[in-house]
């Protein structure tokens, strides 16, 4: 035990915290942007209009068949080609995350809407509701409640996945720890810190998902 030197963390705290902040920012953009885009794509997946259904379905199937690390790489090299200039590693990672997570969130949204029985839709229609009112007041509120646990689980995964952005040199939490490690040679201490921080955050979110699931079971 005597060979551990935890001062390495104390000494590099501002740099590591900067990395953690980047991780949080990337997760926030990826999860909220992915969710919003996912709602649209998920509803498009249920559309009976072919020009809406097919592109959305193709997007979901292709994206979900690719490893995230490839998508991150791909956007990093593709965007400068398309725009003629680089948008920086953070923005590039954000675009990749939003697109990638949207495909997963879309499937959760689609399944959530489908989990509400058609009888509910018929009941709403029978009282004179149109499609918009039915979705807004009857279907989506129930669907959202049904999907809460899956949404949180996917968010936990998305949060962990932000560490993959190190491949394009983005200074997120894990990458900042490895930079410090390269200089200070304190792998055990640094990676233990990273592990503990990831564990605490993700474990809390998983617990929350579990509580929501239990609550959902009661409400029905």
């Amino acid at each position, binding site marked *: 035990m005597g060979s551990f030197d935890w001062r390495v963390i104390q000494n590099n705290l501002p740099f590591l915290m900067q990395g953690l902040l980047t991780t949080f920012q990337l997760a926030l953009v990826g999860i909220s942007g992915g969710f919003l885009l996912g709602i649209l794509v998920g509803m498009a997946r249920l559309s009976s209009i072919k020009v809406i259904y097919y592109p959305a379905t193709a997007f979901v199937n292709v994206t979900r068949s690719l490893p995230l690390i490839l998508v991150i790489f791909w956007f990093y090299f593709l965007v400068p080609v398309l725009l003629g200039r680089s948008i920086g590693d953070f923005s590039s990672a954000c675009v990749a995350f939003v697109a990638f997570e949207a495909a997963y969130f879309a499937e959760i949204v689609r399944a959530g809407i489908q989990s509400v*029985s058609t*009888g*509910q839709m*018929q*009941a*709403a*229609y*029978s*009282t*004179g*509701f*149109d499609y918009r*009112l039915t979705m807004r*007041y*009857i279907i989506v*509120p*129930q669907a959202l*409640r049904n999907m809460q646990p899956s949404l949180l689980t996917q968010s936990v995964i998305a949060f962990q996945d932000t560490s993959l952005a190190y491949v394009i040199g983005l200074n997120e939490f894990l990458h900042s720890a490895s930079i410090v490690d390269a200089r200070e040679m304190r792998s055990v201490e640094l990676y233990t810190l990273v592990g503990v921080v990831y564990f605490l955050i993700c474990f809390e979110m998983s617990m929350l998902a579990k509580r929501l699931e239990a609550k959902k079971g009661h*409400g*029905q």
Partner: protein
Amino acid sequence: MIKIKNISKWYGDFMVLNNINETIERGQVVVICGPSGSGKSTMLKCLNGLEKFQQGDIIVDGTSLKDPATDLIKLRQKMGMVFQRFELYPHLKVIDNITIAPVKVKKIPIRDAIQRGIELLERVGIPEQADKYPGNLSGGQQQRVAIARALAMDPEIMLFDEPTSALDPEMIKEVLEVMTDLARSGMTMIVVTHEMGFAREVANEIIFMDEGRIIERGTDKTFFTSPKTERAKDFLNKILL
């Protein structure tokens, strides 16, 4: 008030409705019975446009359902419907289940809608359940809330799709009582049911369907005492045992 003219409907190759004709006058109570899979519920759902039909036409108060220009949303506002599995909104309290359509569709002030909702709950005998969620009510209570929800839009016609067949026997009576009251108040009602006691008491006409066709129709007396077809005789023997 409702004229069903030669309607037929197919699911793929399978014919669910075969040339149905029927006229229903204002204030009439019509009971539709028949074995499961005979097309009763499908026909009922054609009346308010929840199901489409491929041939024929249905005229409700002079409005053709076949006409693509017909505003089904508007038409449904004067036709209440009660479902076999209640279909109350589980995320809304009982009172909100009843008031949401008047408030969102008819733009009735929330205060008035709540007052009317309580009156309707009194009418179906459960005003004390207003602030509960549907999941905490018994089946019979849920179905009575569903009737109140349909009545909240002040419909001229009420459609009932096997309203008691998902209920325990002791709860059937409380729902039938509400329906009998409604029939006596002069509501036009079309009821898919096997409750022959109810049919005997309030129906002006009983329709017997089999394999997508109306194969027998009659007033309560003629239908029960002297069914003309073997199929109806057979069916009555089974359910009246």
